[in-house]
């Protein structure tokens, strides 16, 4: 029987009177790659943010590795690597290197780990570039570097390859595949791209009518 690393039950969320989820239930299999699709405004980003602890649900339970994350978020935080809007989330006046170094201090990552993610994301040539002037592709790669520097068990990704070129997208797909196979990382990602779902996902869900359905 499959082991579930995340179990969401009866999740409710409304913003300013607009209901996004009435009673959402979802189980994410450990070491799987799961995609969630849906129209604009269907709640993909909100769902990712709720799982990451950046938005609190109105009701419902989120169990992460057996721990009630709705009550004890602090104890599951280290399990997550999160990429939401790679255009933000870094200090614009700091270089790529300084931003990664800061994150590595926070997660007590060894310098060898820092070198490893820099190499994996091919960031060597951009280390001195200020984040503010980085291209979208570099910003995406940096946000993945920051998300995996603590070797998370779960990687949450929102619209990861939006507005980046095919070559960079391909590299990111390969990395996600590698993280899932070699590091046994569970990946949950939101996307609009059917091709991306086909290439990466073991499981596919769709958000529609305030609920989530397996496809």
């Amino acid at each position, binding site marked *: 029987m499959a082991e579930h690393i995340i179990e969401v039950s009866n999740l409710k969320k409304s*913003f300013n009177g607009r209901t996004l989820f009435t009673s959402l239930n979802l189980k994410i299999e450990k070491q799987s790659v799961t995609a969630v699709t849906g129209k604009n405004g269907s709640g993909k980003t*909100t769902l990712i*943010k709720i799982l*990451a*602890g*950046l*938005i*609190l649900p*109105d009701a419902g339970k989120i169990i992460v590795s057996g721990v009630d994350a709705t009550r004890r978020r*602090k104890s599951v*935080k*280290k399990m*997550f690597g*999160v990429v*939401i*809007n790679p*255009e*933000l*989330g*870094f*200090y*614009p*006046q*700091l270089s790529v290197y*300084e931003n990664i*170094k*800061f*994150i*590595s*201090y*926070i*997660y*007590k990552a060894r310098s060898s780990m820092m070198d490893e993610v820099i190499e994996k994301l091919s960031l060597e040539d951009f280390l001195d570039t*200020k984040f503010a002037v980085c291209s979208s592709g570099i910003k995406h790669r940096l946000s993945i570097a920051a998300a995996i520097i*603590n070797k998370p068990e779960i990687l949450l990704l929102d619209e990861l390859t939006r507005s980046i070129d095919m070559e960079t997208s391909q590299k990111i797909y390969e990395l996600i595949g590698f993280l899932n196979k070699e590091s046994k990382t569970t990946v949950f990602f939101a996307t609009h791209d059917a091709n991306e779902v086909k290439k990466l996902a073991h499981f596919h869900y769709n958000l529609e009518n305030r609920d989530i359905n397996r496809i």
Partner: protein
Amino acid sequence: MNSKLLGFFYRELCIEKSYKINFALKIFSLMFNLVIFYFLCKYISREYFYFLFFGIIFSRIIYYSLLTLNEAIRQEQYWGTIERLILFPGDEVLTHIYLILPKFLFLFIELIAYISIGMLLGISFTLQKLVYLFGFAAIATIVFIGFGLFLAGVILLLKRGDSLGWLTLSLIDILSGVYFPTDALPRQLHGISAILPTTRSLSFFRSLMLESKIDTPDFLFAIVTGILTLPLSVVFFRSVLKIALKKGTLGHY
């Protein structure tokens, strides 16, 4: 040192490095104000300059305790980095405390600058006085940080609350007697002034610096208020963060 705190020190230094002359200009403008006061006081009295000098130093200490967190949160919102702070491992309130601790390095540098210019303007600083000044600054910062946490919570709730922060600081300056003795306030404000922990602290600080007199009850009042306020402020700030996370408005400013 704790790796997370070390990270915030590293971040602060990198940011400061990228705005190389910003801090120097800030110090210069503070010094410039002090020189203006010095020449104005030539027409009043030398004693009034001493009174004002230590009042202004006190005001800067209170500024750092009260407004640093608020300004840091606003800055993180502006850069779009505030959500990352929530993702960091550990307690969110502690993360916010770590965020501001490195900024107190700048208070230390400011105090050195004030002492230097004060000496140039004829104020004498014995070693004992210096120990008193830095000791007071360290304790007052801790005592008033709870109020800063509370104010940051209020401003996080209200958004665009910079003016509220500055209004609070200006009121404290006026009611606590930074620029003139509290006796000069309208009679109706005497009661409010007297119950403010900042008034008692400033009175203690001035006695300490001008007369080397340790008036313990005055400062004890502030310390007790601070100790009582800190846990309440932590609870309040945590609740405000929860509200912002529930509404999804943490990054809004």
